């Protein structure tokens, strides 16, 4: 399989310059490396600009209804665990109308990859604030500024018992590809939040973190087993003082004494998830990217099928005729 073979004849209908193009490209680049057959891959989406994604993948796909892709995928995986199933969703799709299904998908841990295109706006409906928009967001539906406090997707996922959370961005193709591969390797529901620029309704929402002039200052790329270091000259590090993170100068603290990233450590993942304020504000930390957390827990697909097999073994494959002639059957002579 080549990435070319994954393209379809459908005209791509995103606005020129939309971050979705880059994500599509990287997904098409990564999939051929995963050793899958095209007919055994399914992309399922909800509704939104991002959710048009399945049309552009030459695999099986479903453009379902707004917010409900996780429920469709749960049924799909329950009966066909061998398929590689990917959920494509937006910030509104997954955290507003579909919030309920997202959290249940995460706790049940079906083996699927969830790509959350977070542009902090409703793109398809032309620019209303979303559950990830910052407070005070001026949109057509909130001309005086939105009042809602935004969701923190990392904290939401960890709170919902997710077994995998990672963050990446449309503007860093290599990082995006690397994260997608790790997410796919993870057995269970892998939630990948992708910062995606909507250049029409929320242009520049992440520029500070994606633009090369400011990126190194505002972001923290975590890698398994490596110390948390960032800054244009890698001059800053993060130390853990008990459970309190502290920004330190790498010229004063040796790398061994810094916080070493361990994506199996739930406590540390929770602290990392709290690095969520404006990275430029006094006292705040940079925004983390990479795999925050991954844990092994039985997947729902495996559990269901194991239970069915156990039932068949313990009770013998069911004989319906026998069931129907159980206690409540008789003949009247």
């Amino acid at each position, binding site marked *: 399989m080549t990435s070319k073979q994954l393209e379809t004849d*459908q005209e791509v209908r995103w606005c020129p310059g939309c971050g979705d193009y880059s994500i599509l490209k990287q997904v098409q680049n990564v999939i051929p490396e995963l050793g899958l*057959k*095209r*007919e*055994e891959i*399914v*992309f*399922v989406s909800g509704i939104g600009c991002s959710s048009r994604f*399945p*049309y552009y*993948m*030459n*695999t*099986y*796909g*479903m*453009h*379902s*209804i707004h917010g*409900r892709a*996780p*429920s*469709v*995928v*749960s*049924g*799909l*995986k*329950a*009966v*066909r665990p*061998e*398929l590689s199933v990917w959920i494509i969703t937006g910030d509104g799709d997954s955290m507003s109308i579909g919030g*309920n*299904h997202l959290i*249940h998908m995460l706790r049940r841990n079906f083996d699927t990859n969830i790509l959350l295109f977070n542009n902090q706006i409703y793109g398809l409906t032309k620019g209303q604030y979303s559950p990830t928009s910052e407070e005070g967001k001026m949109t057509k539906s909130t001309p005086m500024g939105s009042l809602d406090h935004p969701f923190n997707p990392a904290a939401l996922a960890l709170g919902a018992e997710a077994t995998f959370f990672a963050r990446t961005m449309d503007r860093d193709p290599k990082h995006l590809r690397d994260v997608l591969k790790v997410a796919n390797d993870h057995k269970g529901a892998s939630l990948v939040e992708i910062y995606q620029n909507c250049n029409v309704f929320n242009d520049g929402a992440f520029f500070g973190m994606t633009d090369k002039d400011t990126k190194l200052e505002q972001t923290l790329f975590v890698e398994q087993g490596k110390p948390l270091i960032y800054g244009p000259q890698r001059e800053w590090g993060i130390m853990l003082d008990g459970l309190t993170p502290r920004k330190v100068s790498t010229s004063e603290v040796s790398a061994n004494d810094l916080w070493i990233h361990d994506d199996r450590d739930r406590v540390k993942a929770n602290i990392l998830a709290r690095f969520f304020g404006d990275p430029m504000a006094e006292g705040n930390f940079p925004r983390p990217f990479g795999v925050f957390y991954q844990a092994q827990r039985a997947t729902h697909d495996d559990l*269901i099928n194991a*239970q*069915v097999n156990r*039932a*068949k073994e313990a*009770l*013998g*494959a*069911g004989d*319906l*005729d026998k*069931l*129907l*002639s159980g*206690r*409540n*059957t*008789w*003949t*009247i*002579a």
Partner: protein
Amino acid sequence: MENQIIEPSGLRPMGTRKNSKVVDQTVVEIVSDSGEGAQKCGQSLGSISAKMGNGVWTVEIIPAEIQPPARSREGASGIRVRIGSKKVTNMGNHANLVVALNEQVLYGRLAQDAYKEGTVLLIENKWANHELEHIRNQYAEAITEFKAQGLDVREIPMETECLKLVRDAQKGKNMWVLGMLCGIYGRDMERAEEQVRGIFRKKSEKIISSNLELLSAGYDWALNNLEFNYEIPAMKLDVDQVVMNGNEAMSFGTMAAGIELCSMYPITPATSVSHHLAENFEKVGGIVHQAEDEIAAIGFAIGASYAGKTALTVTSGPGLALKTEFIGLAVMAEIPLVIINVQRGGPSTGLPTKVEQSDMLAAIYGETGDAPKIVFAAATIEECFHFVILARKLAETFRTPVMLLSDTNLATGVQPFPRPKINSEWFASPIDQSAWKEGVGAFQWSAETGISKRPIPGQKGGMYTLTGLAHDEKSRVAYDPDINQRSAEHRSRKMAAFQQTLKRPAINGDAEGDLLLVGWGSTLGAIEEAVAKAQEEGLKVSSIHLRFLLPLEPGLKDIFSRFKKVVTVELNYSDKVGDPMITSENRRYSQLAWYLRAHTLTDVDCFSNVFGQPMSPAKVLQFIQNEVKK
């Protein structure tokens, strides 16, 4: 007539049955506070009777609350059992006999017109000597009132009798009552013993034998202390029978259909379908999935169906409302799926435990846009079994969601029917994973029938994106307005293609006359019983009973044209002309009437109500008599 009962093994000697009166049917109620086992008692009486070859129909009497306060008027919990010499198809009219464990619960039933003058009331008399004065007074007042209303009141020392055998009369009184009723109605005590052993099969031998003793003590007491008892002759049936309620029948039907998955969110009165299913489903490889809500439940079923498995989702009113957007997707994207809606009273939370047939139009028209799908309704408990199998077949043949309607009356009613012999043709064929034929679209609609074949993930060369957007034969999003028109035509054509295979509904009675009643769903038995009586009286009345609602069965307009008047009988709301503000212009018709008026351009009238009670033959008969005389 003297009727010596043979002594069954392990039981004490039985009393002698004297002067038994032979009746061809009777209606018995057992009412109590909830948790006193009245339903178990009545179900057992029903099963024993069915096994003797009697016709049986049971209806549960359910309070809205799980644990209403004891001795409350609204808290009546219990069961009605109608036993007949022939097949019984409905709950009948007034009860002939009622057993009450306290007097308060009877008020509610009286208000519902469950009893008439002469109904025998066997009432627990322990309240007469209760330590609290106000309870003694309540009891005394009630007895006076019941007598004044014409009930034939017999005060029975149930508690005292049970205490002779067990320390806690609350546990086991229902079995004593069962014994008493077996005595009164000449039930086969070997069958009764077997029934009691079945109920307590998971309990210790000691518990079993103490319940058996209560059973035979109740039997003896009846024969030694009551001056009446009855015989209800039974039929000889040479085919195996099964006895179950409609929800159990649907769960067996689900397995017999080869459906592989049922997803649901608990809701009364649909939940027990999945409970029955969960007991056995995994043995035949099936899955019951309890989703986070009804939307997710149907999404789950759609995901499984898209992946090639046959799926079912079960719900009731409020849950159906939540499923509508996904049903629209299933229609648009032609996803085979069975949806069972066990109707309860509505709108909103409505009457969760009571019967209504108010979801018909929601089932047919509930989705936005034009969303044709097959909708049909079971009329008997036996049909609850067979229609699930049919629903699965139709869903796959016509690549469509299929909605099967039932209701509380069928869901909880128990009736015997011939035991189905499982037929492997009922099962779904395994999914085809051979390569998809090149060039064929995922929606290659037949111009003739609108039917197309679908590729399944895993099938080489079949890749497509299923979509809820208007789409062409290749499932490509339609930017051309013609495509939407064309695809809508094909989806609608499937309904017509199916309609062409349907037969005209059978007419119960003459093909012409003064009045034709049209029913659907669980009212079948009551309507046909009333029509039979009216026909005996010489009235020119017939009835038809619709199973298919979308598409409708053929020939209706022609059938209607041969009757002076056509009236639907339904358990949903309609206005009555003459009520304040209601005129013949603004009057709202009941649902089937509305639908048939539009469909046949016939002036179809309606007889309907929403009391939350099953339709009674007496009410229908009275309606017929008034109508024909007019």
